[in-house]
């Protein structure tokens, strides 16, 4: 049988999915074992025991200096920035995306502007944000918004443009005004597609968040990673990276589930084109 026609059984598929993870852990253990055998105080590839100690220190003990649980404080600070920025970006994406995608005057006026703005590298704007907005929360949230919103705007505009023109004609023959078409035809069909592009933007959003926190911050997951880097504290950095990955992964899954639950029509409609 050709390779393209061979399919793993469900159990085998799950096992196959595990293999890369196991391989990475095993490779780490071997590397770490070799280095620790040479130098027991090696900091580059710490043992799992020192991870456990670091996780216990960061996530379950009060920090002696501040009296807080550091992981909790960092996560709260980071998620606040991330969610605030994503909420703002989603609103911008929806409003601008729909008017650009649907209304020819706005497409003519804003379409190429947004296309150009989305090409500005957001990190290059970070100094400007720090200068104009200070080092507080606003500049970090603004960086994420600037990084994510243009992509959302363009994607929403494209999705709106992809709606069959028959739908808009049909709505007009039912007497719909432009506002009613936006509210009852375009917006409900855009939301599930917006979730798709939001899922793709979670990665960049974390990138901008950690970049902003690394440069100027007093809390946050990115701040902590770059702080303990000075002490080569790999035992803290690696669990933090794993924690960030887990958070991002959970956000992605949540959005996928939300899309299925809130828009039960979407999958079939997408399949039937």
């Amino acid at each position, binding site marked *: 049988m050709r390779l393209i026609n061979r399919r793993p059984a469900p159990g085998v598929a799950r096992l196959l999915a595990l293999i890369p993870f196991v391989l990475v852990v095993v490779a780490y253990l071997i590397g770490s074992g070799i280095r620790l055998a040479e130098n027991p105080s090696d900091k580059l590839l710490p043992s799992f025991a020192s991870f456990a100690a670091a996780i216990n220190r960061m996530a379950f003990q009060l920090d002696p200096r501040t009296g807080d649980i550091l992981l909790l404080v960092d996560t709260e600070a980071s998620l606040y920035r991330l969610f605030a920025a994503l909420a703002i970006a989603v609103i911008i994406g929806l409003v601008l995306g729909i008017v650009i995608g649907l209304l020819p005057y706005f497409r003519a006026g804003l379409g190429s502007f947004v296309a150009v703005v989305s090409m500005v590298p957001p990190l290059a704007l970070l100094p400007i944000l720090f200068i104009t907005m200070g080092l507080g929360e606003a500049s970090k949230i603004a960086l994420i918004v600037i990084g994510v919103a243009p992509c959302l705007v363009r994607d929403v505009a494209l999705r709106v443009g992809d709606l069959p023109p028959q739908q808009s*004609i049909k709505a007009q*023959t039912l007497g719909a005004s432009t506002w009613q078409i936006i509210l009852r035809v375009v917006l409900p069909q855009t939301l599930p597609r917006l979730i798709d592009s939001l899922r793709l933007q979670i990665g960049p959003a974390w990138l901008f968040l950690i970049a902003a926190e690394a440069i100027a911050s007093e809390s946050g997951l990115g701040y902590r990673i770059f702080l303990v880097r000075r002490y080569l504290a790999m035992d803290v950095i690696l669990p933090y990276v794993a924690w960030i990955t887990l958070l991002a992964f959970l956000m992605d899954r949540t959005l996928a589930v939300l899309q299925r639950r809130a828009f039960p029509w979407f999958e079939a409609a997408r399949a039937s084109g």
Partner: protein
Amino acid sequence: MNAIIVKDVWKEYDGRVILEGINLEIAPRAFVALVGPSGCGKTTFLRMLLSEERPDRGTITIAGAPLPREPGADRGVVFQRYSVFPHLTVLGNVVLGLELKAAPLLGRLFGSSRRAAEDEARGMLAAVGLAGSEEKYPAQLSGGMQQRLALAQALIAKPKVLLLDEPFGALDPGIRAEIHVLMQKLWHERPLTVVMVTHDLSEAFSLGTRVIAFERRRNEPSDGGRYGATITRDFEVWPKRIAGEPRPSKKKTMPGRDDPVPSTGSLRDDPALQGDTP
């Protein structure tokens, strides 16, 4: 009263003439079928009736008034595809027309007015044979049922003119025959003028009161696209069909294309030999 009058309409795209010199008068309550080879501009003509396109020359008037510059609730439409909204249930698709009319700001009805609208929509769904499917989404319906839904959705807005763009073209023959019966019934029952584009001649003659053929009189590559299609045939269907007076269904003498093979009363291949064998 509601006659559609088309006077000397021309349409060009990018220097290519699509339609030329179209003159047509459509009586109220007529069921006009537009036929012609593909690319002959019959859909373009329908889009002009819909105000999706505007003629480059000539005028179109409905009930004496020039055609509005954009589509509106006076003219309903059913397309071959994408006529219904995938994000609304069957009931939601039909209620939508009532909600848009009654709630300009939110486009939604609540409470007793919503229940009244739903009852009206259920009545319409029952009339097109979709009772029991109210809570399904269009993607869960077959092609024929989707077009029934599209008809219900268009008719709930009570248009004076119903425009059909190859509405049954993608359906299986058996399903198409069923929906033809429904289409006839709806046309008899409601005060509608229907204009239907179709590429199926038998459909045109079995539904229409009048069949109009669009064709290019000249179509040579050397013409450079300077000759458009125009009306070349205009048949009144005989015996006359009169809206609101459905004939009692009588046995057809000739089977239609989509009808089952008529029984000859014997299993023999050669009915001529029947009875008078020497």
